[in-house]
């Protein structure tokens, strides 16, 4: 069987009294886009931040190509980190920098890409995301949807091997949402990156992701293909993917 690229093994995380992850087991395979779905506030972003090392597990381990990341020497850990790119849910754009400077920053700071090449790659990426002509604007001058696309451009400008998307299309209009999804799918096919995407966009994620994992009550209650999750008979999964809340439905019916 193929060794997972990233593997969570009984990962626990707690913030004060709030236990967010209660023994997460998850496998992410190379060359696939894996969607992590689940109710809001359940800990999907926390899980994603563990992958890139922004958060450390209280217990358990996260493996990269079979090796525990937290047991790696600093140099190896840094080498792993350099393979990743992260798109934040709240965009995390640098508000004192222009859009051009924001997207160019990861290339510029490495000091290994020539100036003209940086210019070309930034302009290409902005054009692909329908953002041409806003290079000199600041994030505060853009709409929420445009900021999302700038954040996506910044995440993809380095042509990373693994991209972590935290709700990449929330707040976008349907046309731009489809464009962003199509771009992720197309990029994945072209460059073969591994993607992990936290998303609520059901059923869209079933068409662009090869693997779905569902987080519920601190654990992964399902991981498998989109076809498998759609055929699942598990009530919690069926209710979630159909957008049904049994308690709310019951309350609404009783009010009638």
């Amino acid at each position, binding site marked *: 069987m193929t060794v997972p690229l990233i593997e969570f093994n009984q990962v626990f995380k707690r913030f004060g009294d709030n236990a967010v992850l209660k023994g997460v087991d998850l496998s992410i395979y190379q060359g696939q886009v894996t969607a992590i779905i689940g109710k809001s506030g359940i800990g999907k972003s926390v899980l994603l931040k563990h992958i890139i*090392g922004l958060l450390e597990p209280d217990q358990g381990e996260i493996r990269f190509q079979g090796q525990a990341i937290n047991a790696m020497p600093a140099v190896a850990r840094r080498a792993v980190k350099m393979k990743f790119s992260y798109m934040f849910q709240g965009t*995390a754009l640098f508000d004192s920098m222009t859009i051009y400077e924001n997207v160019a*920053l990861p290339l510029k700071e490495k000091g290994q890409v020539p100036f003209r090449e940086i210019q070309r790659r930034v302009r290409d990426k902005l054009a692909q995301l329908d953002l041409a002509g806003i290079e000199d604007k600041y994030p505060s001058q853009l709409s929420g949807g445009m900021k999302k696309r700038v954040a996506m451009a910044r995440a993809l400008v380095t042509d990373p091997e693994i991209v972590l998307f935290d709700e990449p299309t929330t707040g976008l209009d349907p046309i731009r949402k489809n464009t962003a999804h199509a771009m992720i799918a197309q990029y994945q096919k072209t460059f073969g990156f591994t993607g992990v995407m936290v998303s609520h966009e059901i059923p869209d994620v079933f068409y662009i992701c090869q693997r779905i994992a569902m987080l519920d009550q601190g654990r992964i209650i399902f991981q498998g293909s989109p076809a498998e999750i759609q055929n699942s008979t598990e009530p919690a999964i069926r209710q979630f993917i159909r957008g049904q809340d049994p308690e709310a439905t019951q309350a609404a019916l009783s009010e009638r």
Partner: protein
Amino acid sequence: MTQSYTITNMLAGLGRMAISPVQEFGRVAIFFFRGVIYLFSFPLQADKIIDQVYFIGTKSVFVICLTGAFTGMVLGLQGYYTLVKFGSEGLLGAAVALSLIREMGPVLAAIMIVARAGSAMAAEIGIMRISEQIDALETMDINPVRFLFSPRLGAALISFPFLTAIFDVVGIIGGYVTGSLLLGINSGLYFSRVESSVLMEDINGGFAKSFCFAAIVVTICCYQGYTTHLRKEGFGAKGVSLSTTSAVVLSCVMILVADYVLTSFLL
């Protein structure tokens, strides 16, 4: 049994109170040394240092001139009416120059820079922290301490001595305005006393102080902003406001403490 628990808890509380500032001091010291190491690591961040020199240094010139002028003028007035009692008003130039160069110039210039630039640094870095911009740097494999703190530290080490020198010169001119132009001390006497009384070691001492104050101010202000998310008293915007307040208060207190320590070594 209950009484022994209470005593144990009290002792534990006292221990925590004693250990906590030591731990915090250690963290600040590590933050500072990391900043110094990254300041000299390649590739050098000359463009960012120049930007910060403009922000900390150039943009502070006006406020430094203004405060320097009035400090010198007040020293001129006070010094004149004190010295005239002893018939030694001719020494006003020496009194004003030595007070400014040895003590008031470095201290007041540093406090004015804290008010103008230090608070802004703490607020800017604090906002970057709460809006995940610092996390974003980490995900891009950009060292946040190197990116945010080192250029500010380098710029402060360049700017503080210059601003102190401007403060001193403008202050001496301020003393001349009140002492000579308003109160009638001979201009030649005023400046000859300045020249004869000020030694190179006084000027070096003033610069040594301004270097130390630069390191203290920037480290405290950047550290307060950088650790905004760890504050227990407030989160979000309130956390940033608390960090900014702490940065200004702590910097001013530490400037005065360091001034005493340095003066005791320099004298």
